[in-house]
Structures are given as C-alpha cells and as structure tokens.
C-alpha cells in the first residue's frame, strides 16, 4: 500500500481507440455523400390529392417528375395562376417536349420503354393545365403516366 505508484510497468500499452470514431465518421460521410437524394426544390404549392387505388412507383431512376401548382409565397412574382415546374424552373407546356427528350437522353436504351412520368399536381390546379401537360406528353409519345397522390381518401 504505497502512496506512490510506480510509474509504467513493463506491460504493453493499451491500443489507442481514439481513431475509431474517425473511421466511423469517414463511413458516415461516405454514405452521406454517396446517397443521392433526388429532390427538386419546389417553387410551387404542392399539396397532393389523396386516393386509395394507388400503386407504388418503383425504380426511382426511371421516373420523370413534372410538378404543377400555384406559385408558393416566396415566388409570388410569378403570378397566382398555376404553373408547371420542370427541374428547378417554371416552364410552359411547350417546354415539356424538350424536358422529356433530355431526360430520355440520360437513360439507357433498354430502359426507355419503362420510363414513367409522374405528375405531381397540386389539388387546386385547374384540370385545363393537366390536360395541356397530357397533350404534350402524347405528342412525344410518353404515354405511361402516374397521377402521384397521397394514400387515403378525400371523401367527406
């Protein structure tokens, strides 16, 4: 029971685990960077309607998104009429053809038949605009569409 412990025996020093967090963080960062979350920042209101007869949109990379709705608060300058949004920009119906063409160009040839266009349209949009979009899609032969909805029912 000596008051002063002898410093440092002959035992092996413990392996420092201080770098383990670094390794874990490296993994974390790798996954954070490698995960692509494809999400357009929306410039429009996008309150989707609800429906019960829904099917899941699988194969995210084969989906082209077209958004429509009235411009949100921050983009009041664009008017109050419903607008189409492609990628990050407001667009006119005539821009859809080139949008579809550019999307198709990024896909492999054998995937083209499975491409599906998801229409994310705000509840309060006029059907006129939706019809315009559909007409443009028909012109470029992008016939598979999906009216994206929430699950549930709007029935009162």
């Amino acid at each position: 029971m000596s008051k002063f412990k002898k410093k440092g025996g002959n035992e092996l020093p413990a392996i420092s685990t201080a770098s383990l967090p670094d390794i874990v963080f490296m993994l974390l960062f790798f996954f954070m960077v490698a995960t692509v979350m494809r999400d357009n920042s929306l410039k429009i209101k996008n309150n989707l309607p609800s429906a019960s007869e829904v099917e899941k949109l699988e194969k995210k990379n084969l989906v082209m998104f077209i958004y429509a709705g009235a411009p949100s608060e921050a983009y009041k300058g664009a008017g109050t009429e419903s607008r189409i949004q492609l990628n990050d920009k407001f667009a006119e119906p005539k821009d859809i053809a080139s949008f579809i063409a550019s999307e198709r160009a990024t896909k492999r040839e054998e995937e083209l038949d499975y491409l599906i266009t998801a229409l994310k349209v705000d509840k309060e949009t006029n059907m006129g605009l939706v019809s315009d979009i559909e007409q443009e899609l028909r012109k470029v032969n992008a016939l598979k569409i999906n009216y994206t909805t929430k699950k549930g029912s709007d029935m009162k």
Partner: protein
Amino acid sequence: MAKRSAPEVNAGSMADIAFLLLIFFLVTTTIAVDSGINTKLPPITEETPPIKKQKNIFTVQMSADGQLLVEEKLMDIKDLRQAALEFIDNGGGQGDDKCTYCSGKKDPKSSDNPKAAVISITHVRGTEYGPFITAYDQLAGAYTILRNKYAQKKYNRSFTEMEVAIKKPGSEYLSKKLKAKIDEVKEAYPRIISKAEPK
C-alpha cells in the same frame, strides 16, 4: 512546480456515440416512396376510333365546381362507385357479347359485358385536380372490387393480395403461374377509363 501533463480524455466511447448516431439516422430515415394512380394516355393516331354503342358508355361529366353529372343525371360522389360497379358488371349482352361471370342486373339498356364497357370521364378546363382525382379513384375502385370478387371466386384469393404476392420476394416472387392468373383477372375486367379533352 512539477510539470504535470494534462490527463488524457478517454476517447474510447466516441466510437459508440458515432455508431449510435449512425444507427439512429439509418433507422429514422425513410426514403419517401411516391405512389399514385397509374394510367396510360392514348397515342395520337390518324385513324378514327371505332364507334361504340351508347349503352356501353358510362359518361361522367365534371363541372368547374366539382359537381358530377353521371349518365346525364346529377350524382353525389358517394354514389359514383356503386353506379360504375353496376354498369360494368351489368352483363346485358346476348350471344357473342354474353358475359358468363357477371352478376349484374342484365339490363339490356346498360353495358353488354365488362370488356365492352367504357367509362368516359370529361371535365371542363376549370375543374379542380383534387375532385377529379377523387372521382377517378372511385371509378378505379369499382374495377378493383370487381376484380377482387372475380379472383375470389375463381382462385379463392383476392386480386389485391395476388398483386402484392407477386412483388414480394418469397415463394411466389415473379412466378409465371401467378402472373397468368393476374392477367386473366385483368382480362376479365379490363380497366377502361377514357379521359376526354376538355371542350
């Protein structure tokens, strides 16, 4: 004064904290899967479509304020599915058009058989998207009910359940037999909902 070295902070548990964070985020992150009603647009063709008998067409018109005019009569959205269901499953056809599996009223003034029955939904430019989707959903729902009933009778399981089974990895995953059954049910009650351009 004796030189004192600062005590070393034990960093061994840092890894545990980092792992805890990693696992927490792994568990809580839900990658949102979009879902919606799938449909196909008609291709643009030069040829005029074949003329259908009026009794085989079920017309649904929507006004700008979301009111429904079904077969020229004002109808509440609550009754739409039942009305569509009765129309599709009517089976009033004779001879070649006879429907052997329909359980409807066999009204000669309504549709011949589900394969000939067409639901036509029209709207004006001012109709809102929300009510339109609700109506479309009701119409699609009528087909689902009929398909379920048919599948239940023939294969003793519901159509919805069959569709789930073929997508879920397991004994029936992508099985050809199940696919044939699903196609057969779809063939019996093809979902023909025509969406006309607004005038």
